[in-house]
């Protein structure tokens, strides 16, 4: 991590509310390009809220507000001429529980992001490359027209990743992507993250500290809506500066 990578994402004094609940307090951090940032913290600390502010999904919740700036490639996401729908194609998201579209086949699921928006292209080629990137091609290449629900949990999650990759995002947000999966499926997803790092910038929210330690370059620890500490993953897990970080990471919380 010695290269001077330009910050892909910059967050400045971000605050977020759900009606009266002040969910995020004055959060500022940067994420360099082609790196993986892990976000850790106890339940309810604002991890998911933070990540949803990065692709403007937060504002879709009724009663939600935010202030502060979020910049991707130096461009303010809330600038007047920024279309939130378009933004979500550049900043993709994968969720905790695999959620393939149940009425569509595997093939249709992968190109859903394009088909639904009327974007034309060489679909078969795109499906193959997305599924290859998600390390799922070999397992499903003979049954692309089968329903997406015929896959196992781990495969469905990789399908959702392929679907997100098909729209060619620059940033991928992952909200606890492996928490519903068994250890082998989890290991595959983690390996996938390491490979994707070459072409994307990734922000991953996780409950699992060992996972954060395995896949990320930098880690941010959140507690009660505040960013307590943000540093290299190695430093956070071997020698954290803040006592609350130390307590969380060694299991002295609660």
């Amino acid at each position: 991590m010695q290269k001077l990578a330009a910050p892909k994402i910059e967050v400045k004094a971000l605050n977020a509310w759900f009606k009266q609940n002040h969910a995020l307090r004055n959060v500022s951090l940067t994420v360099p390009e082609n790196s993986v940032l892990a976000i850790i913290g106890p339940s309810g600390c604002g991890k998911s809220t933070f990540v949803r502010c990065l692709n403007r999904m937060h504002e879709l919740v009724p009663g939600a507000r935010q202030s502060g700036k979020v910049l991707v490639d130096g461009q303010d996401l809330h600038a007047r001429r920024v279309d939130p729908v378009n933004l979500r194609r550049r900043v993709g998201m994968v969720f905790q529980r695999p959620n393939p579209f149940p009425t569509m086949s595997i093939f249709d699921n992968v190109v859903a992001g394009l088909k639904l928006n009327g974007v034309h292209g060489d679909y078969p080629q795109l499906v193959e490359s997305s599924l290859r990137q998600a390390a799922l091609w070999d397992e499903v290449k003979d049954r692309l027209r089968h329903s997406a629900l015929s896959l196992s949990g781990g495969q469905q999650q990789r399908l959702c990743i392929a679907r997100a990759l098909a729209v060619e995002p620059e940033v991928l947000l992952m909200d606890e992507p492996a928490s519903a999966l068994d250890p082998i499926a989890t290991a595959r997803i983690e390996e996938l993250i390491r490979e994707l790092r070459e072409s994307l910038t990734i922000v991953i929210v996780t409950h699992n500290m060992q996972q954060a330690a395995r896949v990320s370059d930098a880690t941010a620890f959140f507690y009660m809506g505040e960013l307590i500490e943000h540093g290299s993953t190695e430093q956070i897990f071997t020698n954290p500066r803040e006592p609350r970080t130390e307590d969380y990471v060694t299991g002295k919380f609660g």
Partner: protein
Amino acid sequence: MKSLARRRAVNWLMTGLCALALSAALVPLVSLLWLVISRGFAGLSWSFFTAIPAPVGETGGGVGNAIAGTLYVVGIACLIGVPIGVGAGVYLAERGDTRFGDSIRFTAEVLSGVPSIVVGIVAYGLVVLPMRRFSALAGGVALAVLMVPTLARSTEELIRLVPGSLREASLALGVPQWRTSLRIVLRTALGGIMTAILLSVARAAGETAPLLFTSLNNQFWNWRPDQPTASLTVQIFNYAVSPYPEWHDKAWSSALVLLLLVGALSLMGRWASRKKFR
């Protein structure tokens, strides 16, 4: 050990009581089917399904026009009622968490409790009087009013059943809200909605009272919406209250035909839901 034997005994007793209750519940259904089939089967023939009623005194004739009329009037009801009902349901599910939405829901509840004959009279006042004639259209309107509340509630429930995660997944891909509602949410709920439509069609096909003041009856074939039309239910009524015993037999046969029609529609509804929901 003693308590185990006692528990087994109580288990047997309760199972027995439940079976008894089931039999009691089945008795009216079975006796109804038995009665209708035994009295009506004899009158069934190819001409019964395809011919129009014969004048008084002549033998033969059938309920061909009544079957067609039922399908025609119910078809008009669908054309009016399905878009309104499903549309209302979609609106309530997507944007209905407001006072306005609550009032719509309340209205639907009230409307679904209104007796069908009252709906018929209202349709008389709203359609028949201005048009100065009885018509299939009026019948369709009356039946549509009966269909809309249940369709709206069912559609709303079904759409709410679609997991929010699917909506989120679509939005996160950069698909706009309205397209998400239409092509993802609605499409996922479509199977259930088809079933709901088929079931309300089956119900509408069995209504008599609203048709009495709206589509009236017709002894001939009719495909014009502004003319009175025959329907199975009204035909059964007419046959049954007549003084002629042959017509009473015809009533039983018509009832059997109606049961077959409604049964077929219900089965189709079940088949549709079995295929679409994995």
